[in-house]
């Protein structure tokens, strides 16, 4: 592909310069000029030009693979000691939606050792078919087995879309599979849809440049279209009345065939905090001011029976445990209520809480970006507002008690 600027037509208005996020175009001698070192050929300037003086040329030859042979949406499941992870159900919901738009089947692939009893209920979350590869070795995760087995299945069944959780495991095997199949893989997506225009291309949206900008990525010329998806981005779907087709494949792997050997597994003796499944989360950011001040957050959380969380800044300043970090580098959560206290709301934080039912923002800066996604906003001093809310909830509880009495 290449970008051409028609100097005859260019009026030197500069619209293209403002549209370019990469600084890839400049004015020279009163006309637009491309800076090839910076241009990524995204085409933003082509759309921005009011006189049509910028043209993008696609010189790429069509790839030889026959895309029409590929049908169906696949989700690669993950389990922890044979318990299917919660995000797999979320992905089934999204996968169902995509499969319906494409009018194709939704298949879940599982590799495990004792998952037989779970297979039936996966239909209720939307799977038309479950392919279960079974072996005692698959109680644990082996990179090589996952890559070999899933690649072979993809070659055999030819799905058009393969979705994988953006977990340490998913991000370990998915890139190798995409490389072996010479197809595109988009990392850590936060949104998925089908392109209205082409009717078959997967639109994969993810934060980029550290998160301030969103990019939508497509894989037009190769199949399957693969993405890893950040857990917590979609809701677990409502159960439906559906029985999946089940195919069980007995895996005949030997430990001696694998080049990486698990010597042992050490438990990290930490109490697990389950922010992902909390109903109410109260979080504090830079505005809290000190570790001691986090007490007002904890008090409110206690009154609401909620979990306490923090922004990246609060974690970096040592005010709160890293396991309680919410946002792109921390947890992605979907509580019924999220109360953000003194959190400005950088996009990295916002992507972690977008799925919350109700977001309350308390911040002294009325221009804080957190208000952009809040349902209720309070502009004020959190050190006064938060304790007042705690008192009010306490008062309401007392009232309730009296009424019952």
């Amino acid at each position, binding site marked *: 592909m290449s970008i051409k600027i028609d100097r005859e037509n260019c009026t030197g208005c500069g619209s293209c*310069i*403002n549209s370019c*996020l990469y*600084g890839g175009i400049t004015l020279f001698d009163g006309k637009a000029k491309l800076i*090839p070192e910076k241009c990524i050929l*995204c085409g*933003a300037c082509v759309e921005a030009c009011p006189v049509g003086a910028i043209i993008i040329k696609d010189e*790429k030859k069509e790839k030889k693979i026959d895309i029409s042979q590929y049908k169906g949406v696949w989700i690669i499941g993950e389990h922890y000691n044979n318990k299917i992870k919660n995000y797999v159900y979320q992905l089934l919901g999204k996968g169902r939606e995509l499969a319906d738009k494409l009018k194709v089947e939704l298949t879940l692939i599982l590799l495990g050792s004792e998952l037989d009893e779970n297979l039936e209920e996966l239909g209720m979350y939307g799977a038309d078919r479950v392919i279960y590869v079974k072996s005692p070795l698959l109680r644990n*995760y082996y*990179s090589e087995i996952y890559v070999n087995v899933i690649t072979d299945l993809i070659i055999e069944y030819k799905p058009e879309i393969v979705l994988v959780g953006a977990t*340490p*495991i998913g*991000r*370990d095997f*998915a*890139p190798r599979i*995409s*490389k072996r199949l*010479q197809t595109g*893989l988009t990392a*850590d997506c936060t949104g998925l849809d089908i392109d209205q225009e082409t009717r078959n291309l997967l*639109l994969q949206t993810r934060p*980029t*440049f*550290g*998160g*301030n*900008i*969103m*990019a*939508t*990525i*497509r*894989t037009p010329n*190769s199949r399957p279209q693969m993405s890893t998806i950040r857990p917590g981005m979609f809701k677990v779907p409502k159960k439906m009345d559906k029985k999946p087709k089940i195919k069980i494949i007995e895996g005949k792997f030997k430990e001696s065939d694998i*080049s*990486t*050997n*698990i*010597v042992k*597994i*050490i*438990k*990290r003796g930490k109490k697990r905090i389950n922010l992902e499944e909390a109903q*109410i989360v109260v979080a504090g950011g830079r505005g809290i001011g000190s570790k001691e001040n986090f007490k007002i957050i904890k008090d409110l959380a206690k009154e609401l029976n909620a979990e306490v969380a923090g922004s990246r800044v609060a974690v970096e300043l040592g005010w709160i445990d890293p396991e309680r970090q919410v946002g792109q580098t921390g947890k992605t959560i979907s509580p019924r209520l999220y109360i953000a206290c003194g959190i400005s709301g*950088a996009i990295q934080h916002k992507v972690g809480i977008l799925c919350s*039912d*109700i977001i309350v923002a308390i911040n002294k800066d009325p221009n804080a970006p957190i*208000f*952009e*996604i809040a*349902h*209720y*906003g*309070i502009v004020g001093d959190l050190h*006064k*507002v938060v304790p*007042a809310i705690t008192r*009010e909830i306490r008062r*309401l509880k007392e009232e309730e008690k009296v009424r019952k009495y």
Partner: protein
Amino acid sequence: MKIFVCIKQVPAISEVKIDRKTGTLVREGVPGMINPMDKNALELALSIKENTGADVIALSMGPPQAEEILRESLAMGIDKAYLLTDRAFGGADTLATSYTLSLAIKKILKETEESKNYLVVCGAQAIDGDTAQVGPELAEELNIPQITNVRYVELSENKIIAESIFQSDEIAVIECKLPVLITVLKELNVPRFPTISGIVDAFDYKEVVHWNAKDLDADIQKIGLEGSRTQVYKIFIPPQKNEYIKLSGTIEDVAKDLCQKLKEDKIL
């Protein structure tokens, strides 16, 4: 023994600022630096070198200015540095990037007649792209095993023992014979600073070798934009939504209003 460390130049700030008025990136005064986890990869290679005398090689694919980070790695004590730079490499996704890196590693292995006795170390992910894909894809291209998310490494004879984190409350201890590729986490070590003599060496005595597509005998179909399977379709700033209900008045009023609203929403 050879240790290859793959490094990337990233912007020296964790988030790029946007001018909301014009919708463009604020790029002025944003210097480049070695991706933080790649520094941990360099440190690991250097500490293995101290114990075994291994030959440590740093590689980076990027524009000519990425030479800076290779100079810095030489100043830290790396033996040789290679910059893979060519206009034809531009616009590469992870598939094309890993192919290009693999060509350089294969070329060095061939020239030095080393075939099995090597280790490749990458940072687990870069702070700008955040994909964590180049490492595993490079391992696949080299046809060697991988261990990702490594927080501790021991090397003995021709095998490594690595602690990898796949579950938040578990550490898997994994053993693997060389050659192998590992991707490392920040908690692995504390990267050293370049010494004064290291800096002098890096600028006066050591060189950064530049290789272009031709030097690597690269298949044009597999590099840069041409070799990329993913395509940036659209880049946008997340839309601002400004429809929140503003609660105001005295502190007590605000607290009461909020609780009332949350009751109506059936949360309280």
